């Protein structure tokens, strides 16, 4: 399991980093939120944030696979990524109702986040499937 976990966590971290850069690119292209930090700082924060999001998602995917909650790895990865994002978003909505001045929810940013969470699931899913098909060592 440890080797399996390292393999899955590595895929999650790699997928998360790629996803972080995708989020940065997508955000810059759509202009839904204009970056406030410099490019270097943004790349660093999106890389770290994406990697953490990816490893956490991959950890839950590993649990799902172990418990046989889903058969198709890509579908399971999408469900887990969307579920994780949704849990965070519901928590954000709760914070928003408690402290509206501090936490504003914006519909377009929420929609972008939802689509990005879907993308994370797709990236992790395909990376895990690639590892599985090619028997990548830990």
């Amino acid at each position, binding site marked *: 399991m440890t080797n399996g976990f390292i393999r899955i966590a590595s895929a999650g971290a790699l997928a998360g980093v790629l996803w972080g850069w995708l989020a940065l690119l997508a955000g810059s292209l759509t202009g839904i939120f204009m970056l406030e930090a410099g490019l270097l700082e943004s790349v660093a924060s999106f890389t770290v944030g994406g990697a953490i999001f990816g490893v*956490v998602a991959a*950890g839950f995917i590993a649990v799902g696979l172990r418990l046989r909650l889903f058969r198709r790895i890509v579908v399971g990865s999408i469900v887990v990524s969307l579920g994780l994002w949704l849990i965070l978003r519901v928590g954000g909505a709760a914070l928003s109702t408690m402290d509206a001045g*501090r*936490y504003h929810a914006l519909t377009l940013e929420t929609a972008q986040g939802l689509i990005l969470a879907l993308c994370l699931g797709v990236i992790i899913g395909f990376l895990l499937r690639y590892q599985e098909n090619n028997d990548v060592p830990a």
Partner: protein
Amino acid sequence: MEKVIDRDVLWSLAVPALVVVALAFALAVIAYGADSVVPGAHDAFHDFRHMIGMPCH
């Protein structure tokens, strides 16, 4: 007496679980910009938080 906690079990289950829980906590700190937990978390991940659709000011 029966050995309840095996070292292999600890390494194979507990350590990965602890890593995921710790990172999930870090993710929550990042997603909500919890400066009270980690000073500077809000500013460091401000753009990331907005980009992934989390509420912020």
